[in-house]
């Protein structure tokens, strides 16, 4: 542990890069799709890339270009984009105790997406404190870079790529559920957590299937939390 904590920052950043590679399986196909959708909606390659670099939030970006294309008022476009991203509010506080203080957080937190949060919350507690900052920089910058490059490629040659390798866009995204499964699996050793996790996964899956994908994450997590507290209450009643 002490040897690890004395590693050069770039080594720790590289470790973050390496561990974030599975995220690309999900990021690249979605970024390619966004590039295609944005150009079809009338945005140039440069504009689509700028949206990806600045907003950097998948679902809300699709909504943004979609609403603009239909001629929705700009204030409504911004309000809806922010509403979809409200879930990010709970991510930061969960990582606050795991990361050191730094004056760079105001811009580094730009990289805190759903996937980076999930990876960081799982990996940071296992890393020495001194390496966590660099690890986060490496992991989040790789994901951000892949998202931007994916959008640019999608906007310029997305339709050609998906036409040539149609299965690419179907197989690669499976890296995301596989990665998240390895993250939640350790919690299934505890019965209370297993019930809450199972309830959350099922709720998110159902909400997504009925088309409520934008609110699926916070709503499903709220269902799971309710389940977590209810199970405790029932156990106490039985034992008393």
């Amino acid at each position, binding site marked *: 542990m002490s040897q690890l904590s004395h590693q050069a920052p770039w080594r720790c950043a590289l470790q973050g890069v390496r561990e974030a590679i599975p995220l690309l399986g999900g990021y690249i196909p979605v970024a390619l799709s966004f590039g295609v959708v944005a150009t079809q909606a009338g945005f140039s390659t440069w504009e689509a890339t700028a949206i990806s670099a600045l907003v950097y939030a998948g679902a809300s970006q699709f909504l943004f270009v979609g609403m603009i294309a239909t001629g929705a008022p700009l204030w409504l476009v911004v309000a809806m984009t922010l509403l979809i991203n409200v879930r990010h509010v709970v991510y*930061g506080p*969960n990582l606050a105790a795991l990361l050191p203080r730094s004056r760079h957080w105001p811009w580094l937190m730009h990289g805190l997406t759903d996937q980076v949060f999930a990876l960081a919350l799982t990996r940071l507690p296992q890393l020495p404190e001194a390496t966590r900052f660099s690890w986060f920089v490496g992991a989040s910058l790789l994901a951000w870079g892949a998202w931007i490059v994916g959008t640019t490629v999608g906007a310029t040659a997305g339709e050609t790529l998906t036409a040539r390798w149609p299965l690419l866009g179907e*197989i690669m995204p499976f890296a995301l559920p596989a990665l998240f499964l390895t993250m*939640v*699996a350790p919690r299934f050793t505890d019965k209370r957590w297993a019930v809450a996790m199972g309830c959350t996964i099922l709720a*998110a899956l159902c909400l997504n299937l009925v088309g409520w994908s934008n609110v699926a994450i916070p709503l499903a997590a709220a269902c799971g939390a309710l389940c977590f507290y209810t199970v405790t209450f029932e156990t106490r009643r039985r034992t008393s």
Partner: protein
Amino acid sequence: MSTALWLAVVASALGTLLMRVVPFLWMQRRLNSESGLNNMPQWLGILGPLMIAAVLGVSIVPVNPSVVSWIATAIGLAVTLLVWSRTRSLGWPVAAGVAGFGMVEIAALAW
């Protein structure tokens, strides 16, 4: 893109960034304060792992849902879990899961 549209992009970007940064800095300050509020609220610690489970639930749905893609998903997840139970790592289980999922998709296409 017009100036108004650029402003909309900047407003969306800034608002999203603030939602990511402000709660993080607020909690870091709270954890290091001398007011006695040195612990993260319990509900927040529970919500974190549940958010990951929710992201898993959302991402399980295949890109093009069909009987084959759902079977491939089930097999891919089973392979991921199997390899994870042996290695307890992140990389290999994901690679094996994607390979399992991909093989079912390709086999179904060839068949």
